[in-house]
């Protein structure tokens, strides 16, 4: 499992989700802290492309050996791409939470919502 890390280029949601915004489309995933708390991830229920997601509400579920947990959307919009590789290889969420473990890409409906998210230092500060 990767060492604790929180990349500078992401925005963070207090429910331990990250977003990486690129030209109105955001990639979502869960943070190192979240995957560490979950333990070994055994299943990710990949949502469907075209589904609407709302900031602060759940859009997917991740199942670890300990529990099934909700994954919260940091921003609102419509899912335009999903990481289908997680269906057969959910361990990527543990091994590479910011890379191969990405979950969905969302075309943002209200990019200004990003103002409410935390930067790296604020999120890391909230963990201690």
């Amino acid at each position, binding site marked *: 499992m990767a060492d604790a890390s929180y990349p500078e280029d992401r925005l963070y949601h207090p429910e331990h989700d990250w977003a990486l915004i690129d030209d109105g489309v955001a990639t979502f995933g869960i943070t190192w802290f979240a995957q560490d708390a979950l333990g070994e991830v055994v*299943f990710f*229920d990949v949502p469907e492309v075209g589904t609407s997601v709302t900031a602060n509400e759940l859009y997917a579920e991740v*199942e670890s050996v*300990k*529990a*099934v947990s909700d994954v919260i959307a940091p921003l609102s919009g419509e899912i335009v791409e999903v990481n289908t590789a997680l269906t057969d290889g959910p361990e990527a969420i543990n091994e590479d939470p910011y890379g191969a473990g990405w979950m969905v890409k969302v075309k943002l409906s209200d990019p200004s919502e990003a103002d409410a998210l935390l930067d790296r230092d604020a999120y890391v500060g909230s963990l201690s």
Partner: protein
Amino acid sequence: MSGYTSVTAEDLEVMLDAIGVGSVAELFDSIPAGVRLRRPIDLPPGEPEQAVYAELRRLAERNLSAEDEITFLGAGMYDHYVPAIVDMLMSRSEFLTPYTPYQPEISQGGLQVMFEYQTAISELTGLPVSNASVYEGPSAVGAAAYLAKLSNKRPRVLVSRAVHPDSRATLETLAVGYGTTVQEIGLDDGVTDLDAMNDSLSDDVSAVVVQQPNFLGAVEDVGAIADAAHEHGALVICAADPLTLGVLEAPGHQGVDVCVGEGQTLGNRLDFGGPSFGFFAATQAHLRSMPGRIAGETTDVDGRRGFVLTLQTREQHIRRERATSNICTSQALNALGGVVYLSWLGRRGIVDLAELMLQRTHYARETLAALDGVHKLHDRPVVREFALRLDAPVQRVLERCAAAGFNAGYALGRTYEEHPDGLLVAITEQRSRADIDRLADVLGEAVAAERAAAEVPA
């Protein structure tokens, strides 16, 4: 305080003091006044234990066991022989705790039973995944339709009118909770009307529910029903009688997505309706939407074969407040009876048993339908049960048969108003050919007597 509860007034005071409450009544203050009973429950005063025992024994003597009469009553529960090995293994103290085996290191026996049970149900139903059992048949049907709802989120379920009335009632009750509307599909000569089903199928149908053999004893064309349902993207749920699967095609091989059923016939006695267990099997795609728990085979740190609880994805400790299944302690002990029974029968035995039932059922159907005033209700193939029509009041005929020591079957009019003259007759390996011949005599006489009585001028 009742004479059977050893709490003195002093005990009570100490306990109330400890929790800072003035009276027992105060404990119920949070229940709204409008729904509270404003008087003591209307019960007779306490009696000495000896007198209560005598009264209960008097009441128990009025019970009629299936062993006290020659019974052809079925309608979902059947009088099969339960071999002594079932009782012997079920009463072992190691199995008598049904508590969830969270700790595999102290629960290998119980977990292995679940695993073997699942393997047997999986083979029997022709579906790759079985859970470790549910409460009973009807709630399994309700839970299966919920699985369909989780899978495709569609709002409607179609259920054949030939599905057991208890299963349909349970489905309707549970479906209110998960927001599914239930629509009944009528029958055509004893089986689900495929044309009517096709007319009702559309892309908002979550699942089609059928029963094999159906409540009227008839064998359904499950393959054709499955094809029609799948054309509209609906799942197919089949409630099956497990012992008939010794001669019928496994539902999983006919396109059924979820096969459930009542497990009573597998090593559980009638016991006035329960307890028994339900079975629940599905295709791989629905593994994580299944209720209950699934035990799995693994190896321990030394490479030895062992068993663990592998999946309980809908239960409380894994899903917390969003749990959607609450099988809890399940019916593990009754399911143990089921797997012991199936192991006792064996692969060859279940075929022999089903063939025996098939032959005797056909003999009984032809013999009874040849009586004056007795007709087949439908001409469909049957395995262990069949429906007749009588030219005489069914209830009175049943009473006449009972007086002769026979329970001739189930009066269909109790649940099918369109068949007030219907009689459902069930056969098990416990009913010999001689029993059937005697039933024919008794039933023939009863029908003749009732017809004669009806012809007497007023």
